[in-house]
Structures are given as structure tokens and as C-alpha cells.
């Protein structure tokens, strides 16, 4: 029985290491990462809306360093605005981060689930 459990555990490790995960980054350490990543940061400055595209800048949630321009296409999740903490799935294209999937964190420090759209 213990072997079965250990075997199952091994399956997780292999599965997640190989395919399932992607790096969780902040604007300050985004540079150099190719491929799909998950970026978390705070929206700063003015948000430009044109057509179905949002353009804004992101910096670290804490420490306010690293400024990354973001181009986002897709459904805008609830509570998105300047100053909100967001999480974006996408990739780095040159020096701009391109994304089609975003979630926002609830403003209160202790609340239930965040709002999201994908």
C-alpha cells in the first residue's frame, strides 16, 4: 500500500515538473524569460483602451520596481483598474508582455476568491 501511494506521488512530481507548471514572475525578474509565464504585479499609470486591446504598465506589488508594458486582449475581469494587483498569463514579446488571460485580486486583504476571466 505504501508503495502504491509513493508511486502515485511520483506521478505528480513527473507530471508537474514536465508539463503542468509555468514560472510565476514579477516585473522585476521577467526579462529573459521566453515561453509562457505567469506575471503578477500592480497596475500603474494610465490604462489605454483601443479596440479590444488594453495597454498599461505593471510594476512589482512590493518594492515598486521593474516597469513592464503590457498589451492585453480579451475580457476584462472585474475590479480591474489602476492600482489593482493583477495576474496575467502570457509571454514576453520583445520588451512588451502580451497576454490574453487576466485575473484580479480582491481589494480587501482578507476576502474570499478573486475575480477572474480567461
Amino acid at each position, binding site marked *: 500500500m505504501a508503495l502504491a501511494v509513493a508511486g502515485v506521488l511520483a506521478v505528480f512530481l513527473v507530471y508537474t515538473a514536465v508539463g503542468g507548471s509555468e514560472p510565476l514572475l514579477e516585473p522585476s525578474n521577467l526579462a529573459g524569460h521566453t515561453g509562457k509565464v505567469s506575471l503578477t504585479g500592480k497596475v500603474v499609470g494610465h490604462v489605454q483602451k483601443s479596440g479590444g486591446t488594453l495597454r498599461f504598465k505593471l510594476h512589482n506589488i*512590493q518594492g515598486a520596481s521593474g516597469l513592464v508594458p503590457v498589451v492585453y486582449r480579451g475580457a476584462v475581469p472585474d475590479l480591474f483598474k489602476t492600482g489593482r494587483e493583477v495576474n496575467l498569463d502570457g509571454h514576453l514579446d520583445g520588451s512588451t508582455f502580451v497576454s490574453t488571460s487576466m485575473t484580479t485580486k480582491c481589494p480587501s486583504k482578507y476576502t474570499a476568491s478573486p*475575480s477572474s476571466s480567461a
Partner: protein
Amino acid sequence: MADLGRAALAVSFGLALYAACAGTYAALEKRRRLADSARNALVACFFSTLVAAAVLAHALVEHNFSFVYVYQHTSRDLSTVYSLTAFWGGQEGSLLLWLLVLTAYGALVVMLNRRLLRDLIVWVVPVMGAIATFFSFILVAVASPFKTQTPPLDGLGLVPSLQNPYMVAHPPMLYLGYVGLTVPFAFAVAAMISGHTDERWIVATRRWTLGAWMFLGFGQILGAHWAYIEVGWGGYYGWDPVENAALMPWLAATAFLHSVMIQERKGMLRVWNMILVALAYELAVFGDFITRSGIVNSIHSFAQSSIGGWFLGFLIVTTLFSITLIIWRLPLLKARTKLESALSREATFLYNNLLLVALCLAILWGVLFPILTAEFLGQARTIGRPYYDFFLHVFGLPLLLLMGIGPLIAWRRSSVRALLKSLRWPIGAALVAGAALIAAGAGSSHPGLIAYTFSAFVLTTIVVELVRGTRATGSLMLLIGRNRRRYGGYIVHAAVVLLAIGIAGSSAYQTNVERTLKPGQTAKVDGYTLTYKKLETIPTVTESGKQVETRALLGLGGRAKGTLATSLINSTLLGPSHAVGIRTDWLRAQDLYVILEQQNANGSIIFQILVKPLVNLVWLAGFVFLGGSLVALWPDAAEQRRLVARLALARG
């Protein structure tokens, strides 16, 4: 008044500490008066915590902004109901709620069992006292709800998304669940320390565990419905760490509820049950820890609140303590009997346990992955939906199947012949259902098809069981009344099946499209026709400032008639939010779900249109689950009398 609150909490802390220390001494030295005194202290602790809670509640209702907490979570124009709800809207208040529920459970359980289980209660008191000591310490020294300030003119108010009935019900219900798992844990620890590791502690805590599990389960469905209606992304579960935080202890508790039946009948799996109950409790605390500290949302959250550190410490100490206890008592806990046959109900329970725990650990791994990778690889990596869905299928679908097979297998040993005879109807039903489903196009999703077929199998099993039982007993009511645990369990299984069908339908077979419509244009989606009629702009001023609601009206045709409104609300303070339009087709149990995504400059609107088949079965499942749990929970006066008589007889 804040002084009273602080004082009451300090008294709670003192009483809890006394209950822990005096209780331990009394148990070791076998001193009745001291043990009773410690027990009274635990009860008094509830009352002093209640006073503190009343102080906070009063301040909230009165909008007394000299309380920092009241200032942070209410405002002058907040209604009374939501001002009270703000009690658990923040860190300190929710901790106070935790302590209140904990001391309430503690007081109730020790008073109700004070004569029947003295040998266990004498240890349960110090264990619950110790846990209450931790939480009251946090409230007194680290996160006090009674910080004061010179009162500003108005408070910050409660976030609008929290001002709904769900916020009133969802957190307290979850707490009744999380905290309720402390009871079986405390009894398990008491059983191990006292050396009375037989089934008595399990029988004593069975209803408490069932109750906590029921609240935790229903609380999660409430939360899912809240997300579906309010948050408006078309889904109800996102495998978010906070959601998983409640699911993991629930899975562990489900495994525990099943495996104790084996211990009660065969005296087996005692070590496993101890591990399970400790796991369920630790996961409940861990769940609370994740939700509070925010550690898994952002790897830097540790710095945000020192409370995370305290919770982590508590988690480590209690886990090490439990492990040490189990190792110490291993000789007492070792099984005296073996599994008789791989084809027995004991065996199916064992398989069900392995699957439940495996799923629980898979989710835990997913939750911890970002933290572990950050620590050991230097770079945090996050795990997405596909991982969780994969393991939900791998472990969940066999579990679904087992739910059907288990009830049909007898205890101890079943012959293949007898089993196949029992399985005739369910297998037949599954095959028929499968064929019909494939003909109806359900073959587009393999996991969905499997889920549906297995569900048909399980539902038939339950019906067969009910029919057989009613034939033997004469009436369905009598049958259920005499075997509340078993048939309550079957009703819960039916609820899980409904849940599985609802989840399969609304995820595997949903339609999700984007359509851009100008006024007058029509979109045809899955049998529905939607015509964009007109746009309304509604400016309002709420407590969170100005907001403008842009409401689109759609005319419906085809499967549904009438109009549907869907809105995009832009608040100057908070940003955009959606008020989605949902049209429920009760006959088909499906929803037409429309999100107003974007207004274009040329007057057209991008709508996201979802058709979610069978989604309403998920909510129905919640109620069936509640009903089944209540049936299983229902107190049995005869059983209680028997236990009392037995104790008297044993005393001579």
C-alpha cells in the same frame, strides 16, 4: 467599550490557558475537582469570548469608528445586516469568529459528554484549551479587533462585492466546518494520551464530525454559487488556493467518515484513522492560514502580515505533536484483524480512502508548488487548471464508480457471483445510458461521457438499494428511520452524483462563444436566439462613490423567451465589474449566461455567451447533500439510552 472587549479577550486567554494547564495536571493526577474546574474554565471561555464578540458586533452596528476595525470595514450608510456581516470581513474579526465557534464547540461537547466519557473528556478539555489559548493569544497580542483611534467622520465601507447574502452565510458556514473538525481531533488526541484507543472516541464524535463536514461541504457550494452569480466569469470553481483550502480538509474528512466504519466493525485501520483525523484538522488550519496570510497568492505576502508566521508555527507544532503521539501509541493502535477479502465492502472503503487522500494530496501539491519551487529552485512556478482537472478525472471518476459498487458489496466477503447478480441492473442502466448519450452527441468529451455513465450506474445502485430495503421493511420511511446512517449516506451519494453530472454537463459540454452585435442584430447559440435590442446608461451614487451601469437588453427566442439584461458597471473608485444575465431553463437545468464584455466605438457590443447544460444540478446537489447529511446526523434517542445504560451496567 473597546476596553471591555480587550478585557474579555484577556479573560478568555487566561481561562483557556488555565483549562489547558489545570486540565493536564488534573488528568495526570486524576483529580476530579480540578478536572471539573478546568472544564468549567473552557465553558466560561465561551462566555467571555461571547462578550467580546458582542462588543464588536455592537460597535459595528453603531458604526463606532473609534474602533479601527469598524472604521476599516463599515461606513455610515451601510445597512445593519451588512455592518454585522463585516464582523468576519477582515482579519481580526474573523479570528474572533473562529475563537467564538471554537469555544462554543468546546463548551458544548464537554458539557454534553461530561458523564458518559469522563476518561476521554478529562483530556479533551486541556487539548481544546490549548488550541483556544493559541487563538486567544493571537487576538490579544497580535491581531486585536479592539484597536482604537480618534474617530474619523466616516468609515471605509464594505466592498460592494461583499454586500450580498452570500457574505452573510458563506464564511460562518465554512467556519462551522473548519473549526468543527477540531472536535474529532481533540478526541483523537485524548484517546491516544489516555490509551483508550478503541472505538469509543469515534462513536462519541461521529455526529460532530458529520456536522462539521456537512457545513464545510455546503459552505463550499454556497461559495461556488456566489462566484457563479456575482463574479461573472461563467464558472464556479477556479482551483484557486483559497477554494482548495476548503476542499482539502473536506476530502480528508470524507475519507475519515468512511474508514471509521471499518474500524467500528473490524477494529482495523486505527493508525490510518488517527492520521486522517489529524490530517483533516491540520488542513483546516492550513486552509485558514492560506486564506489569511496570502502566502500562496504572492510569495512575498509573508512580509505583509506577521500572523502568517504564528499560524505556521502553530501548524508545525500541532503536526509534530500529532505525529509523536501516533508513533508513541503505535503498539496500542496496531490492528488485531486483517482484511478478509479484496472483494468486500471494507476493501472498497479502503480503495475509496486511497483515492480521496490521493486527490487531496494532489491538490495540496498544487497549492504548495509555488512556495516550494520558489524556495528550492529559486524561481516560483505556478500550476494551472489542466493539472487539477487531470487529477480530478484520474481520482474522481473511479471514486464515482466505487460509490456505486460499494453499497452492493457485503461486509467481510462477497462472492463474485452475488456481486454480479446485484450489478445486473446498474450495469444495464449504465450501458443503456451510455449508448443513448453517445447517440445524443455526448461522445465529444470522454471524461464527460464516463462521468455520465458512471452516474447512471450509481443512481441505479441507490434506487436498487432503496427498492430492496423498502420491500424488506415495508415502508421507505421506516427503512430510512431504522438505518439513518446508511440511507442518509446513500442520499449524500446521490447528491455527489448530481454534482458530478452538473459539473460534467457545465464544463465538458458547455458552449462558450463571443459575438459582436450591433443594435438589432441577432446571434444564434445552441438553440437560443439573442437579439441585441438597446443599451441603457444608468449613473448612480453608492457608498463607494459614483458608478455608471451600462445595461444591454437582449430579446430572447428559441429555447427561451422574453428579455435578458446584462451589465457592465464602472465604478470610479473600484473599477469595472459585471452583472451578468442568467436565464435558467428549469426543465433542462441549464443556464444561458451572457456577459457584456466590451462596448465598441462603433456602437456594437461584444457579448460572451455561454450555454451551461445541467449546471443547476450542482446547486440542487447542495440541498440534497444537506438533506442526506441531516438524515445521517439525526440523533437517535434509543442509541443514546443504550449507551447510558451500558455505562451504568459496566459500573456495576
